[in-house]
């Protein structure tokens, strides 16, 4: 840490970790509903729980991104934050907004669109929060003497994030157009805006821990993000195969999403390369593990698992099955959850001025969450293959097929419990570091 105002990041990290834990609790509840007849059907039915599970995911990740941004921007720009007050205000607004959203779901206050369930009033409130955030970051960046690629990419990412969000606000009469623009939020977030933010945060961490020249790191950042956007924007087409949009999307979507793994392979290669050519002794070995692990899991969860069912010939059978749940869990964990944990394990000890800290717990968190998420994702995958074959291939009734998938749902639950233990350890670790006296 160099600047006093970077400290606003800590509370973002703490809330990020706590919401992560809550998300997993609700996840466990969801999978239980698959296994046994549901005693909570009257209070928290599946649809409400799913809305809470996915929205908590988005909220904790946004807290993580914002915390990471507030940590990095002063250091990159060589100046204090434009306004610590705004950063604090925006923190409370987002926290209250998130909580009101979750409680609202329990009372049926919903827009009823998957992942974008937040009611329209809250969606506009989020826009306000985003504008404060962007304003604060922008005003800090323009004080800089030397504009860096990391800054530019980060700013581009958060602006794109806010702009794409707008497409999720209106009501569409036509279901096909509804989903057409729904994907502008969902897909262009995770395979666009979020990748920009994640790539710049990661570039910063790599720059700091390896000491490799900025020129080299930023060059790769440009190449990677270019490829992410080149393949990812038109790659949105892999969601336009079966929703009522024209058949040419099978070609555009199929070809461009087949190329989507390229930037991720490059990212794995270039992370390992930077680590190999490091100019500094890496003292925070935990961060090194998370960095490399993140690159590898990003590749497996997003690139490999995504690629497997993105071709139209395969997707025809797997679309709308648990195969998507498998890919979703593995990809989000590898690409974003691990990234945010990397940033937290880098930035939080630094904020406290800790040159050394006890990393034992952090390594436990790493191995437990990685192995359990891998198991969980693969179990969902097997369930999805069974579903694709029996339900779509053989035309057997939906609920009958769910019975055959049950052993794999039990496997998901057990892995989920293990994962939960890892996340509890993480929360304890974060709280302990955050409460350390400097």
């Amino acid at each position, binding site marked *: 840490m160099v600047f006093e105002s970077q400290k606003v990041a800590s509370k973002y990290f703490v809330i990020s970790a706590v919401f992560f834990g809550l998300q997993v609790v609700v996840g466990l509840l969801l999978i239980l509903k698959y296994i046994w007849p549901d005693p909570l059907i009257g209070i928290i039915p599946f649809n409400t729980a799913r809305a809470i599970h996915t929205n908590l995911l988005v909220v904790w990740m946004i807290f993580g991104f914002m915390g990471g941004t507030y940590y990095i921007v002063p250091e990159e720009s060589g100046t204090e934050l434009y306004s610590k007050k705004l950063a604090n205000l925006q923190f409370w607004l987002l926290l209250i907004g998130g909580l009101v959203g979750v409680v609202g779901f329990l009372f049926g206050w919903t827009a009823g669109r998957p992942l974008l369930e937040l009611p329209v009033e809250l969606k506009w409130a989020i826009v306000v929060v985003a504008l404060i955030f962007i304003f604060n970051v922008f005003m800090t960046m323009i004080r800089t003497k030397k504009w860096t690629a990391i800054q530019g990419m980060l700013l581009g990412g958060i602006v794109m994030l806010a702009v794409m969000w707008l497409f999720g606000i209106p009501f569409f009469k036509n279901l096909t157009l509804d989903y057409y623009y729904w994907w502008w939020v969902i897909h262009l977030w995770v395979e666009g805006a979020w990748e920009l933010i994640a790539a710049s945060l990661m570039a910063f961490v790599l720059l700091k821990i390896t000491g490799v020249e900025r020129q080299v790191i930023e060059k790769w950042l440009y190449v990677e993000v270019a490829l992410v956007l*080149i393949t990812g924007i038109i790659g949105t087409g892999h969601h336009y195969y079966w929703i009522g949009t024209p058949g040419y999307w099978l070609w555009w979507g199929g070809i461009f999403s087949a190329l989507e793994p390229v930037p991720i392979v490059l990212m794995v290669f270039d992370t390992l390369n930077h680590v190999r050519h490091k100019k500094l002794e890496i003292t925070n070995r935990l961060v090194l593990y998370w960095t490399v692990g993140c690159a590898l899991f990003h590749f497996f969860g997003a690139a490999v698992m995504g690629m497997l069912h993105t071709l139209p010939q395969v997707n025809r059978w797997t679309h709308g099955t648990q195969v998507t749940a498998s890919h979703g869990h593995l990809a989000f964990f590898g690409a974003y959850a691990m990234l945010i944990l990397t940033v937290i394990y880098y930035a939080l000890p630094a904020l406290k001025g800790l040159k050394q800290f006890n990393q034992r717990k952090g390594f436990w968190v790493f191995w437990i969450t990685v192995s359990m998420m891998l198991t969980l994702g693969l179990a969902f995958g097997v369930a999805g293959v069974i579903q694709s074959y029996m339900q779509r291939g053989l035309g057997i009734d939906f609920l009958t097929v769910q019975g055959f998938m049950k052993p794999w749902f039990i496997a998901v639950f057990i892995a989920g419990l293990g994962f939960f233990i890892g996340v509890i350890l993480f929360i304890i670790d974060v709280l302990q570091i955050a409460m350390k006296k400097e």
Partner: protein
Amino acid sequence: MERKTARNFFIWGTAVCTAIFIWLTIDTHTTIPKRTNTDKLTDEVVRGKRVWHKYNCNDCHTILGIGGYYSPDMTKVYSSRGENWLRIFLKNPESTDPQRRKMPNQKLSGDEIKNLITFFKWVDAIDTNEWPPKPITVAKVTGAPLEETAQILKGKNVYNQNRCDLCHRIGGQGGVIGPDLSHIGTKRDTKWLSNLIINPKSINPMTQMPAYPQLSEDEVQALASFLGGLK
């Protein structure tokens, strides 16, 4: 490669792809009226879509393959179940089998049910590039081999659409409230069966089976032929 080359690659690559994507979006919009029959997208359909959102149906069910994977896909529910079945089910979705996953009763009003069904009807006709795909083989409703004439297939459809399986069993599948129908054809002929379907109380005044006056004469005949063929 220089850093500057990388930056130009980034700027131009992104710009070109964004332009292509916007061009494809504009073109897609021109195809929407025909592919989704926007002339049939009435206010009633829109009201039905609002019902769909209001009860957050989409976080359990998928539609066009998108949404929660907890419950069946709704894209083709109108043609596979039929209006009648949907109306009865939406009124009271509680399954007769407590061991299975069930849908909570949303207590929909009559209007809401009507609008929702109209919405499903409109969705059913969207050109989805033939998704969901036709199964490679179709699993049989009954264990006994059937000579599948058009009449019998139609009867099977009537059986499914009216959810006879909620009370009756064929080949081990279905409810336990009514008699097992797996071999009903060995005991009763089609004449007897059609009389029963039209007015169950005419045969047994104590029966709990409801009458099905909404079935047309053709449908009754088809159903009776299907059941009569179960031997």
